[in-house]
């Protein structure tokens, strides 16, 4: 492998355009945890993550257990957040809802991250693939995200896996575009050109130079996609094309609560707050990561 090490680590070229600062490691963590928004985001998201991970411990009742004699209870010691129209414990359903919502969100991030990176790398690195791949991505992005996700989910049928597939199909083009953008910039960098000139293979260049440089914007983007996915999943569930009841998801809890809005607004209130806090935590995390990892994006992102 005749890659000139000097060229890859030359401080000048890194400072010129590589998104990741060269002094990674401890200082990066210090800067992240000195960032107020990031810390707030971590705390918010940490709470929701704990709800999802420890749902079994935190729940005070089985989430699907009905109790006709305890319907529409207001919050009390036995039912921390009251009960719903079937007498199910809302607190416990909320905990298991966190598990489902975060699992779907995380799965979407995973699929989108892998597929988007792959497509973005191919389109950005190989000029011949750029046109056809990105035209297709453009066409997918021409649809409003949530509408296309709804259409796909309604065709595939209501289930958690199909919700993941539908949302991934919608968010992958957005990830691919970001990766492709970084690749186009990095590919023209002197040190990459030097690697090409010295005969390095495409796979090596992508792995060694292009991928690491795409990482920062990718992580930032995926954090926001996590937030969108949690919100979008609740919309799919609300419209009846997400994970179906009686398994609690925050979206289908709101959908069931809609019928009792006048008598028992709490049914719809709590899951909505949970969604909002999750999305808020992730948005703050994304903002913090962007400020620290990739300051250039600061103005671009809306």
């Amino acid at each position, binding site marked *: 492998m005749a890659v000139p090490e000097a060229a890859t680590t030359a401080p000048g070229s890194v400072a010129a355009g590589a998104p990741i600062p060269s002094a990674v490691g401890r200082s990066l963590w210090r800067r992240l945890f000195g960032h107020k928004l990031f810390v707030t985001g971590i705390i918010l998201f940490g709470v929701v993550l704990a709800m999802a991970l420890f749902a079994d411990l935190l729940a005070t009742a089985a989430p699907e257990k009905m109790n006709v004699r305890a319907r529409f209870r207001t919050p009390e010691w036995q039912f921390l957040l009251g009960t719903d129209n079937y007498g199910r414990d809302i607190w416990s359903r909320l905990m298991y809802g966190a598990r489902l919502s975060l699992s779907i969100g995380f799965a979407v991030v995973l699929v989108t991250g892998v597929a988007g990176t792959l497509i973005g790398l191919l389109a950005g690195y190989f000029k011949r693939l750029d046109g056809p791949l990105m*035209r*297709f991505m*453009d*066409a*997918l992005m*021409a*649809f*409003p*995200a*949530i*509408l*296309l996700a*709804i*259409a*796909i989910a*309604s*065709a*595939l*049928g209501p289930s958690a896996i199909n919700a993941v597939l539908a949302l991934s199909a919608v968010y992958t083009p957005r990830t691919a575009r970001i990766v492709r953008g970084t690749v186009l910039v990095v590919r023209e960098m002197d040190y990459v050109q030097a690697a090409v000139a010295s005969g390095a293979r495409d796979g090596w260049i992508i792995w060694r130079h292009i991928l690491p440089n795409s990482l920062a914007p990718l992580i930032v983007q995926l954090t926001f996609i996590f*937030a969108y996915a949690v*919100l979008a999943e*609740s*919309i799919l569930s*609300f*419209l*009846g*094309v997400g994970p179906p009841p009686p398994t609690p998801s925050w979206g289908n809890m*709101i959908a069931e*609560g*809609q019928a009792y*809005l*006048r008598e028992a*607004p709490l049914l*719809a*209130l709590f*899951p*909505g707050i949970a*969604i*909002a*806090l999750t*999305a*808020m935590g992730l*948005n*703050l995390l994304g903002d913090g990561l962007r400020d620290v990892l990739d300051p250039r994006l*600061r*103005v671009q992102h*809306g």
Partner: protein
Amino acid sequence: MAELILRRLLSAVPVLLLVTLISASIMQLVPGDPALVIAGTNASDAEVQQVRRALGLDRSFGVRLLEWYSGLLRGDLGQSLLLNRSVTDAILERLPVTLALAGFALALTVAIGVPIGVIAALKANTVIDQAVLVVALIGVSVPNFWLGLMLIVFFGVWFDVLPAGGYTPFADSPLQWVRSLILPGISLALLQIGLLARITRATMLEVLRQDYVRTARAKGLPLRMVVGQHALRNVMVPVVTVIGISFGLLLSGSVVIETVYSIPGMGRLLATAIFSRDYPVIQGGLLVTATVLVLLNLVVDLLYAVIDPRIKHDGRS
């Protein structure tokens, strides 16, 4: 200018072709036999056959694609399975309501988003600035359909000052029309208000740092004049961008908001179609929305050239 318009129009053609293809392919994703899924498990063979014929599933996908495209040329999007009428008619009948709602929400977005963004920039790093950023954060984090439900509880049920649902056409009563749009409009607009305020703030901060603004201030022009004469024109660029993006989000958001507020627009038509697996309506609605968006983005691109003459010479954007 003419060349720019032509080039942008031509570049939209392949995207539109793919958009129509993707819309037509949605039914292909249905696992198993769509006719069986739609007719239900306890339908008779004859009923399933009837659905199959109505959907054209007795013909190959290639043939159906040809029919789809030849129909598109005549403005025919096929027949709805449940409404017993053509998809085009159903959508055209409901589109004005959705456009009214989206337009109202867009007006709210610009009327609130731009001023608070400008104020936040002028008062950067003060409590006011922070408050605007918090509003923006809430906007991107709160699910709009849930916000809609909570607004119904608050203003429709507890305080009973605004209608909790339904839609009054403008022709019947302009006042009731506005009243029926306020809550759904806010539910739809909050996200966009946050986005627009953030972008306006960022652009404004950028502009305020420019030399010509400093010069204008130095020669004694009051801040009000500087902002009005120099800065606002630059703020227009993100506003136009956001209008392009927002309108798409507002149109797609109408699917849930119209359901929440029982507004008889295209969004509710689609939500009903999703519920009853009326795929021709879903495909048609998807296509119409995406087409409107592609054309809107085209208009936005061209508007840039009008606002910012530099883009004209640059050739591409």
